[in-house]
């Protein structure tokens, strides 16, 4: 969707036409959902988080700066939502793990294999840090500029560039490990 069309829809939403927001959701739901899926590695959670992203986008619409990319702004919300989700999950797992040392491991909580998802890629992706995962997805999938990713993460260009190179090498390494059948570790979050 053209930026001018998005701007027009956003103006309608601000004027009280909530249905216009449906058109915006329709335009961006798939990339946001795909992103959440890759970030979280779990389809149902990704659906829930993607929904929250659009709801929060609506509620915080007055914080969106006109003239900037609305899609990038949504991805920024999605990034925070996914990181929060992972953080809460990690804390909750630890809480539960304290009670049930034998049962509650992150590995046990990994989703059942979902056949439509490339499990090799998913597993390798889940082994790199969430922030690095975001950088990889924004760069490789969304083909965003490093400057924009740095803006999303409130990081310097150099820091993002460095993390990207490291994360990309890690991801390739894990993918090769997976292909060679060397991956026997459990996930750490």
């Amino acid at each position, binding site marked *: 969707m053209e930026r001018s069309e998005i701007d027009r829809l956003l103006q309608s939403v601000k004027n009280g036409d*909530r*249905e216009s*927001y*449906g*058109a915006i*959701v*329709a335009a961006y*739901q*798939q990339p946001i*959902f*795909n992103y959440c*899926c*890759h970030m979280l590695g779990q*389809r149902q959670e990704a*659906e*829930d*988080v*993607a*929904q*929250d992203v*659009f*709801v*929060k986008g*609506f*509620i915080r619409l007055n914080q969106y700066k006109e003239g900037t990319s609305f899609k990038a702004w949504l991805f920024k919300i999605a990034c925070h939502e996914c990181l929060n*989700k992972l*953080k*809460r*999950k990690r*804390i*909750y797992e*630890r*809480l*539960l793990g*304290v*009670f*049930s*040392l*034998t*049962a*509650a491991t992150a590995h046990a909580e990994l989703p059942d294999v979902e056949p*439509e*998802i*490339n499990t090799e*890629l*998913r597993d390798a992706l889940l082994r790199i840090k969430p922030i690095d995962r975001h950088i*990889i997805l924004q*760069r*490789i*999938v969304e*083909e965003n500029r490093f400057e924009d990713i740095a803006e999303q993460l*409130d990081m310097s260009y150099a820091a993002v560039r460095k993390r990207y190179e490291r994360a*990309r090498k890690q*991801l*390739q390494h894990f*993918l090769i490990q997976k292909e060679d059948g060397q991956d026997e570790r459990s996930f750490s979050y």
Partner: protein
Amino acid sequence: MSEAFHTDERELKRRFNETELPRIQLEARVLADLDGRLRKKQPLRSKRLLAAGCSAAAVILMLGILSSFPASAEKLRQIPVVGKLFEGNIFMFAGDNGLIDGQNAGMSAALNKEASDQGVTIKLQDVLYDGARLSIGFEIISEQPDRPLFLGDIAVTVDGQFKPGASISTKPHAIDDKRSVGIMTIDFDGDEHADSFDLELSIGEVAGLTGDSSSPYSRIIGEWSFQMEVANHSADSINRVELAEGYEAKSKDGHFQIKGYTLTPATTKVDFTYMGETEWLSFQIKDDRGMIIQTLDSQFTLHKKNAANGSVRFAPLPSGTKEIFVTPYYLLPAKKGDVKVSAELTEAFPIALSQGNVGEVIVNDVEFLDDKTLIHYEVQGINPYLQYASLWLETVDGEMIISDFGKRTRVSDDSYQFVLEYPPLDPAQPYVLGTMTQTDMRLLEELTVKVEVSP
């Protein structure tokens, strides 16, 4: 794809493109969610368990209590005796010193409200609101033995206005397989000076730990709604001070500034801003005698560039305190988790058990009385209110004797000496003392800020 991409990046792109994710239709769900939110003031649909919803620091404090014990859920299920006898008063049983003092001073009010759904009854017993915190004693009773502990998916409405940004933390205690009690503390944007307000709580989820390794968690979706009037019964005793600039410190770690404080008979609350890394950040207060005040919880809002502002709550200050020293610190969670440390109980007192880099717990005496067993101990170290909760007695087979962290009473104002009360035990039997290594911390002493407090 951009020409700037290298071959290996193209290969990764190809892999992502080959990943077939399902098509999704969210428009209707999002619009329905927004409609529902406007009509019913519903919370975000995502499930947020209380325990996981509170700030990281508060969670860590809670983790500290929970990680005091190594018992697995299955072992916990086998332990018949709760450590501290629950006699019906939730604030007295599960509350911190501030809540207990506040209730004794007449600052709390009885609620005695209950709601039932899906075979689970939630009761709200007492509320204490002092302008620095809003705490409610709750009880969960389930018809099924699914060890209910956590409340989730909670919507908070104040004076008819939905508060989507409200945060809620809790410290639950399991009584038995079907029952738990705890304290929930609610924070929301509002008028802290209000003497009274109407509060509505809508709880959408109860979660618990089954102890069954094949299905360790229980989750019950339902609706438990409460309405109540909340009043500040200590308005005359509140000392709320906003500080001018100058109460601040800088170091290579960050910039810490105290913006104000609130003192009540039940709570000490410090408002702050912090520039620096905020993960695992917490705060310590010492009074003018150098004694550490127990931290209750903290919450903060993160802004750009690692800036945060928020508040941290502590137990009330000892009377006569004229100045406090507030120091930020970082918890340093161990990568390999905490380790159990044990020592045979003999008469060769004192018996010291190491809690890692944090310090040690020293058992000075154990009294086997007809009606109870008293363990006299002291903690020495840098985080005494985390350390003190981690001492227990077990059989030589490693079986815990009580399931809760027990009744612990501080018995000295100028040291961290406690008495832990157990049920009566056979002194002829052998026992083992246990503790866990505790989460290490790094005090940012260069960022200590001194504040003179008015009585």
